[in-house]
């Protein structure tokens, strides 16, 4: 008896501790425009990131989590702005010939690398060739940008300030790829001590600990406000959140909805989008998803609004096909929409011969909690139409190797990121594409894609891309879900935090508000 009483008491005290944990302050979660306030120059901040950098060499790094940080150090000939346009960076101006076969760039005068050297045409030619895999001796660690390697025939420098790209075929969509970082041609310590031209320069990097950058005082463009930014690397979002509660981080960009509601008053929450096509991707090459009716049934069976409600407090942008509204004029919002309809889904499944139920496996990269959570909601929703789905969590490297490269899976939940070129988002659905991991195959798609890519007439191009999205929706290539909301905690002392239509953390715009200083 005594034992029982003690146990109860203990349990009770533990529960109380738990509740204290959960409660927290409930204020501060109303979106607040922090971009106000007069900017002050100077100051240092700490930004939390949850992914270690995969390389400091911008041409070797492939992780989105690395690119978003290196954006502050490196620039290409052009760079994206917050509206998705490409503005001149190392180049002062550029001309795309009318036949879209030649790109001519004029370099800005006196752009300095962080090591003090002036950027020369040799550096630019070297950097572009390295990205495009055109160097005589190519480092196999460098990921060759296939869009560049396929398009570029020749890179030349007719004079000290001009770089000319000649293409194999007309391509008006190459600009987004020319954000490829310009680095010095005779410098071989890029992976340990990176040198670029951006508004910040590299200070130090300790694997698993931190990445530190400071203001580049010789920057040609608008000078950054902050003197120093420390990107602190966390093992998990939970570890980072604990520090956020303690107030030692100024900006943290990967809040979960649950964390957002517990955030203290010190922070405001900025809402952007992740710029991902999140979907339940279906392997069109294997049963049961080789049957279009089954794929359509899944589209009807999944309640996307409910996913948004459960995972991100209703935030996020629902998509019906393979592009997101981030692609502006190319985005087609008038494709077939699969309404949430349990009866219709059941009927389609019955027509496909799965009236008695169906068992499938959803393989999910377990390092992405968001996709894992999405898969869990999906499993519950599928139960209602008689589909028993099992989640198989795998590590990222296994996912890459088995699912993405090996195409050995039935269904998977993941988010695909993309460059701002519309072709980059949908090129994987060509039947012969090496990264067509959904095994989608439609002759009409292939021919329309060829038209879209080769077209130099904007109207024709836009129409073709819209048609492609329509085809993907009609064929129910996969169950497209959303472009997820990105919740970022920003200290209320700061202003200027800006979302981009690509995955970057631009620290050059962030400032301490004058009154706070």
């Amino acid at each position, binding site marked *: 008896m*005594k034992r029982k009483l003690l146990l109860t008491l203990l349990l009770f005290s533990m529960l109380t501790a738990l509740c204290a944990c959960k409660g927290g302050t409930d204020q501060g979660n109303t979106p607040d425009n922090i971009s106000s306030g007069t900017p002050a120059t100077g100051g240092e901040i700490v930004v939390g990131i949850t992914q270690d950098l995969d390389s400091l060499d911008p041409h070797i790094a*492939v992780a989105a989590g690395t690119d978003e940080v290196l954006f502050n150090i490196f620039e290409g000939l052009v760079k994206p702005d917050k509206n998705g346009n490409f503005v001149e960076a190392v180049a002062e101006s550029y001309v795309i010939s009318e036949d879209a076969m030649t790109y001519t760039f004029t370099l800005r005068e006196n752009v300095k690398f962080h090591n003090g050297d002036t950027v020369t045409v040799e550096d630019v030619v070297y950097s572009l060739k390295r990205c495009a895999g055109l160097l005589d001796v190519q480092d*196999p660690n460098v*990921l060759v940008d296939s869009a560049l390697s396929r398009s570029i025939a020749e890179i030349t420098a007719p004079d000290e300030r001009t770089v000319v790209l000649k293409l194999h075929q007309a391509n008006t969509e190459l600009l987004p790829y020319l954000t490829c970082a310009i680095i010095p041609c005779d410098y071989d310590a890029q992976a340990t001590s990176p040198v670029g031209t951006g508004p910040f320069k590299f200070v130090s990097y300790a*694997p698993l600990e931190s990445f530190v950058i400071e203001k580049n005082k010789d920057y040609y463009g608008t000078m950054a406000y902050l003197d120093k930014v420390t990107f602190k690397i966390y*093992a998990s979002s939970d570890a980072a959140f604990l520090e956020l*509660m*303690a107030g030692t981080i100024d900006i943290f960009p990967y809040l979960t909805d649950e964390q957002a509601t517990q955030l203290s008053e010190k922070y405001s929450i900025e809402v952007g989008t992740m710029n991902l096509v999140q979907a339940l991707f279906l392997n069109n090459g294997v049963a049961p998803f080789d049957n279009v009716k089954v794929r359509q049934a899944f589209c009807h069976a999944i309640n996307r609004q409910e996913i948004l409600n459960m995972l991100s407090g209703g935030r996020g942008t629902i998509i019906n096909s393979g592009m997101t509204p981030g692609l502006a004029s190319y985005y087609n919002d008038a494709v077939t929409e699969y309404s949430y309809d349990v009866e219709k889904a059941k009927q389609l499944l019955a027509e496909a011969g799965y009236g008695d139920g169906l068992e499938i496996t959803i393989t999910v990269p377990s390092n992405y909690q968001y996709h894992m959570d999405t898969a869990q909601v999906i499993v519950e929703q599928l139960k209602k139409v008689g589909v028993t789905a099992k989640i198989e969590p795998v590590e990222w490297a296994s996912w890459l190797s*088995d699912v993405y490269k090996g195409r050995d899976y039935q269904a998977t939940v993941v988010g695909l990121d993309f460059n701002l070129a519309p072709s980059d988002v949908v090129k994987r659905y060509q039947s012969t594409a090496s990264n067509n991991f959904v095994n989608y195959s439609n002759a009409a798609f292939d021919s329309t894609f060829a038209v879209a890519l080769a077209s130099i007439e904007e109207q024709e191009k836009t129409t073709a891309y819209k048609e492609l999205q329509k085809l993907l929706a009609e064929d129910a290539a996969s169950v497209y879900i959303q472009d997820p909301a990105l919740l970022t905690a920003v200290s209320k002392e700061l202003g200027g935090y800006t979302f981009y239509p690509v995955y970057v953390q631009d620290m050059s715009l962030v400032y301490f508000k004058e009154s706070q200083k």
Partner: protein
Amino acid sequence: MKFIIKKTGSLIITLVIISFLSFLAFSLIPGDAAVASLGMDATEADINALREELGLNRPVHVQYADWLLSALQGDFGVSTQYHLPVSELVVKRLPATITLAVYSMVIIILVSFPAGLLGTRKPNGAMDTVMTVLSQVGMAVPQFFLGILLTFFFGIVLDWFTVGGYVGVQENPAGFFRFLVLPAVAVAVPKCATMTRYIRNAVVAQKKQDYVRTARGKGNSEKRVLLQHVLVNVMMPVVTMLAMMAADVLAGSIVVEQVFNIPGLGRLLITSISNRDYPVVQAIVVYMACAVVIMNTLADIAYQKLDPRVR
């Protein structure tokens, strides 16, 4: 002398077997360093070129033999992700992990002996029940959860502890040693609970032995019986248990390093596994195996000291 040679020999054989097994396991899981580091956009040709460069396209036994030969000469290669020498990466992370392990072991020893003995005066008495319940709870709490609770309570509610305030031992030794106390508690609590229970049971069992009755019969005080007779006999299995716990403490610190964001070996190991950075993984596996084998050897030596019969 003979003893040392024998132990060193078995250490080397153990290490070779363990390193081979981990190498083999690593080659069996899907994905390799080339796939992991080139990511989604790489073509088959890109991946093969990098495999060639890293030597990953050779048969496993050749790769292992190559690795072993260099490792025997003290060269653990270069990390495929960080492009830094593995020894440098590992050595920089040792102070945190070793300090954490030593702290945890000290806490385990300091807490579990008195706690284990508390209830043995009156087995199943009030104190014994309290200790049993406490150790039950202690064993049941996962370390990562305890880590979060501790951080929340001491770091945020009481503000006695700077959350995420880890500093390197060279930069600020005092801060370094202070910071690691709380993570060590998180590692140690479940182990303390197990140990407390173990000691309690061993003591209670010993007390039922005839020699205890004899010792009491000779007119020894209860305290003297406990310290001079019972404890000496209890020490043998307890030392074995402690040595086995060293391995658990290492495993526990991997989890706790994640929660407290300590850039130690555990985090390096997890990151390296997901990046398929085999040179780093191999080096850490060898280090950890070494640590466990050495702990066991120390236990053997302690055994001899404690019991002259084992010589």
